[in-house]
């Protein structure tokens, strides 16, 4: 339509960090310009799709505010005053500063802080390769909201993610669950295509859909039953359901016995599992089961045992109980009435949901990071998984299908196997490393595809204590984000149409994100940026093959799932992962937990009292708000208009969604004399933010929601992360990496003094940096 003349088509992939949708994109190119994007074909037409962000992606590529050349800071950090420099000068400066800092403090003092790379691989890996070769520090961004789910999943299933266990083949559309329970997640907005479509397909085929969420989301609007749970009480809800399941004998004993630690005896004194050595099998670390037939303890590998999964037994003077009994004892404390009081969900609904899950043929549990962003979010996930496991709704066997994509990163990241690699810090651990040199000092930080100040907990602390203390801040960005404003050296990066990458999504496909146009202005791809710096650090040889060389390195690294997949063939279109033909046999999946079973009883957490998925109160979220200084729980849902802070500056989306609002229930609004569209200030001891209200029933009373991702500067003042805290849960530190508890924050809301602020513009972009853009020929904005 809009295009004239000869148009060529290039298939690429939108790698936006929206989870793993990774939509195939057909780019229409006219001359050196992409004039249109549309959904690209897949071998299986159900994968043809695009979302409103993908559709708007040209507005990112051709945004007039793109950073166009490297810059050096001129004013104070954060002031936004920069001057143009050349790439050579920028990279020389960074290399010299890095070397100087490394001489004084060691290479470890340089931290590569890389955000969610989206579905991308090489753009992420290139920096880590450099981190590894220099033995500097990788600052992992999992802890920016996404590490509690892996913490819980690792404890329960021994795997980074619980999805394959909780959903099995659900996403292939080939199974017909009787129920789909969406717990603490809003896929209708955050994963509309690969996830929400499948949920609606399942519903069309008869599945009952249940949604558990403190907000009545778009996903909830599709549910047969909505449970408006109080934030941070999910583990209690799960225990209440487990109570009913046990009381009514609805658990799947066969499954529990075969795939979980249910029959293994645990000591009531120390909380450890009884081992073979405890019953006289010398040196045996095997788990022990109480055999009902012989009424005696036996090591679990013995044949012909009739396991007892209940009761109290005495083994060589030790009182012990099967893990399932320990769980029953815990669940005993959560009858539906008490659970209802804690969670705010009605008693009969808790009972009925437990009965339905307990009696349904198959239940698919859909979940994600959202409900794990509370202080004990890892336990919430474990509790959910325990409900699934007790009712036999965990996929614990394999009988054929596409192998999940596994990337062997080693040869890529660890380019020189003879040398030690990078050190690793979680992003929450970066705070202390910079502020108080613990566990060791970080003096320089490199930011790529991350908007740290905007998106990470406790922005004031970041601005006043972290950014002021760092010797060097480098950011590679597309825009002058709130974080970029603090950079000493600012490098212009490419949008996805300007470089190639390997995208191992959506399951069961691998795709090639193909470069469609040359980098605009002076922007460079992340791989190019890393390689330019590597050359100056004497490491150029490891980077001389460019993006394509790295893609080949991953494809050729020998993981069976990638067999037969080559870059040449990927150019023609997506390729399916390796298929293992269906087998008659069902092979038990060996879980990578210490017991190789689903561990709803996690021995190593006994000393902190969390071996079972206990319910522990959230850190801040006020369960009993009466008389509290900050009686409201503040949570941050995700918006369909953004992926985190990406797309927040796109005018075509701002037209539809012009400014941040705080969603507040009419009852809470009335108590505060607040009306819809009022300007209000949301605050606590850490900070405040001022914005308009949306008074609506769709958010639980005593809970207020602001969707995350709006940029500082788009609010009247402050931002969501001026309210959040950076408290570390030490248990998560031992399990994996500490998480930011974005949904476990207490606040109060008051009407702002000044209501008659000038009429807002239709959309409002953050104040632009004060630098002058020289005319760049033929590269103006879109229209």
């Amino acid at each position: 339509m809009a295009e004239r003349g000869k148009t060529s088509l290039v298939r690429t992939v939108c790698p936006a960090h929206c989870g793993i949708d990774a939509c195939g994109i057909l780019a229409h190119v006219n001359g050196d310009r992409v004039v249109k994007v549309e959904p690209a074909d897949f071998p299986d037409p159900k994968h043809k799709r695009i979302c409103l962000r993908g559709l708007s992606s040209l507005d990112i590529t051709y945004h007039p505010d793109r950073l166009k050349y490297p810059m050096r800071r001129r004013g104070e950090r954060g002031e936004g005053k920069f001057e143009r420099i050349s790439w050579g000068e920028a990279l020389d400066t960074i290399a010299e500063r890095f070397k100087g800092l490394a001489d004084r403090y060691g290479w470890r003092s340089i931290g590569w802080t890389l955000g969610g790379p989206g579905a991308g691989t090489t753009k992420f890996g290139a920096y880590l390769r450099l981190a590894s070769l220099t033995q500097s520090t990788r600052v992992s961004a999992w802890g920016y909201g996404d590490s509690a789910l892996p913490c819980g999943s690792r404890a329960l299933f021994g795997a980074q993610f619980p999805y394959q266990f909780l959903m099995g083949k659900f996403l292939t559309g080939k199974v017909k669950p009787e129920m789909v329970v969406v717990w603490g997640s809003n896929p209708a907005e955050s994963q509309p295509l690969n996830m929400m479509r499948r949920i609606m397909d399942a519903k069309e085929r008869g599945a009952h859909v249940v949604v558990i969420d403190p907000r009545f989301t778009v996903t909830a609007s599709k549910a047969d039953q909505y449970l408006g749970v109080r934030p941070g009480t999910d583990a209690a809800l799960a225990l209440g359901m487990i109570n009913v399941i046990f009381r009514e004998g609805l658990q799947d004993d066969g499954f529990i016995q075969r795939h979980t630690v249910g029959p293994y005896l645990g000591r009531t004194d120390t909380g450890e599992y009884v081992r073979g050595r405890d019953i006289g099998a010398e040196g045996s670390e095997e788990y022990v089961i109480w055999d009902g037939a012989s009424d005696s303890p036996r090591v679990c590998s013995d044949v012909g045992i009739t396991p007892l999964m209940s009761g109290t037994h005495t083994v060589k003077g030790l009182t012990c109980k099967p893990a399932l009994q320990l769980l029953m004892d815990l669940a005993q404390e959560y009858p539906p009435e008490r659970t209802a009081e804690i969670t705010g969900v009605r008693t009969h609904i808790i009972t009925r949901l437990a009965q339905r899950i307990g009696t349904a043929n198959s239940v698919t549990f859909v979940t994600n990071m959202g409900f794990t962003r509370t202080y004990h979010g890892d336990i919430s996930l474990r509790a959910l998984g325990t409900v699934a496991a007790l009712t036999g709704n965990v996929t614990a066997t394999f009988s054929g299908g596409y192998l999940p994509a596994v990337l062997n990163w080693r040869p890529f990241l660890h380019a020189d196997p003879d040398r030690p690699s990078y050190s690793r810090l979680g992003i929450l651990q970066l705070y202390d490393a910079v502020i108080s040199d613990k566990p060791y000092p970080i003096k320089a930080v490199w930011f790529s595809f991350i908007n740290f100040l905007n998106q990470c907990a406790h922005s004031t602390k970041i601005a006043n204590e972290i950014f002021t203390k760092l010797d060097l801040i480098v950011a590679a960005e597309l825009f002058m984000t709130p974080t970029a404003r603090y950079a000493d050296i600012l490098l212009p990066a490419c949008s996805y149409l300007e470089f190639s990458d390997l995208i191992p999504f959506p399951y069961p496909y691998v795709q090639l994100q193909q470069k469609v146009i040359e980098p605009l202005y002076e922007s460079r791809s992340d791989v190019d940026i890393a390689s330019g710096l590597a050359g100056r650090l004497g490491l150029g040889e490891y980077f001389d093959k460019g993006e394509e060389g790295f893609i080949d390195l991953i494809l050729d690294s020998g993981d069976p799932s990638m067999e037969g997949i080559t870059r040449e063939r990927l150019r023609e279109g997506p390729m399916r992962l390796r298929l293992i033909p269906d087998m008659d046999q069902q092979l038990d999946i060996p879980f990578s937990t210490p017991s190789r079973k689903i561990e709803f009883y996690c021995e190593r957490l006994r000393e902190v009292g969390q071996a079972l998925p206990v319910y522990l109160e959230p850190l801040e979220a006020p369960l009993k708000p009466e008389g509290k200084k900050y009686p409201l729980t503040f949570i941050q849902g995700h918006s369909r208009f953004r992926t985190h802070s990406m797309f927040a500056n796109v005018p075509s989306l701002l037209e539809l969604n012009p400014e941040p609002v705080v969603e507040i229930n009419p009852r809470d609004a009335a108590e505060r004399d607040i009306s819809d569209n009022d300007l209000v200030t949301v605050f606590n001891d850490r900070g405040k933010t001022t914005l308009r209200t949306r008074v609506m029933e769709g958010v639980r009373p005593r809970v207020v929601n602001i969707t995350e991702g709006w940029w500082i500067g788009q609010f009247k003042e402050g931002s969501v992360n001026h309210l959040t805290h950076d408290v570390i849960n030490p248990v998560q530190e031992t399990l994996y990496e500490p998480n930011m508890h974005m949904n476990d924050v207490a606040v109060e809301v008051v009407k702002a003094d000044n209501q008659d602020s000038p009429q807002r513009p239709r959309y409002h972009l953050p104040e632009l940096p004060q630098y002058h853009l020289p005319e760049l020929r033929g590269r103006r904005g879109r229209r």
Partner: protein
Amino acid sequence: MKKRLGLVIDQERCLGCEACTVACKIENATKEHWIRVETQNAAQKDTPEGRFPDLKMSFLPRLCNHCAQPPCVDACPLEALGKREDGPVVLDQQRCDGCQACMEVCPYDAIRYNNHEEKAEKCNLCIHRIDKGLEPFCVICCEGQAMHFGDLNDNTSAVSRILDTRETFQLNPEAGTEPSLYYCSPKPPRGL
């Protein structure tokens, strides 16, 4: 029989995402939004009706109905609007002088006024695409797979099959314009 091209939008699957709105705007390089997604019975977008937690929410994407008896066509003094044989009601912007007579008679508020060019504009059912055998752009970009396009007069078409099997409705049938846009209501929640 003559074709009667039209759309069926399934509210059960509509996510209210507004991808259709954005898609249409890009495809037709428009100023205004030719599709507007309303949240039903709500004062503003994305807000449910009822009292927490007993709530419901559904979405109603609204666009030109490509009426069989289109009053807009008759109202236009310059014959800028026309009804094609196969169904689409098309506005020729070259001829439009911005008098807005069509906007006054459309019962669906489906015609937008482009202040910039001082002309009316509306959905033309993507005739530039459907004439090439492609589906309208909003349909292929619909996140929920809620939009269906086809010949309502062909018993075997996908849209006819939906009309045969699902309960559907038209907006304001009493206006007598015979819309070619049908909606399927959302299914009521079944509880537990």
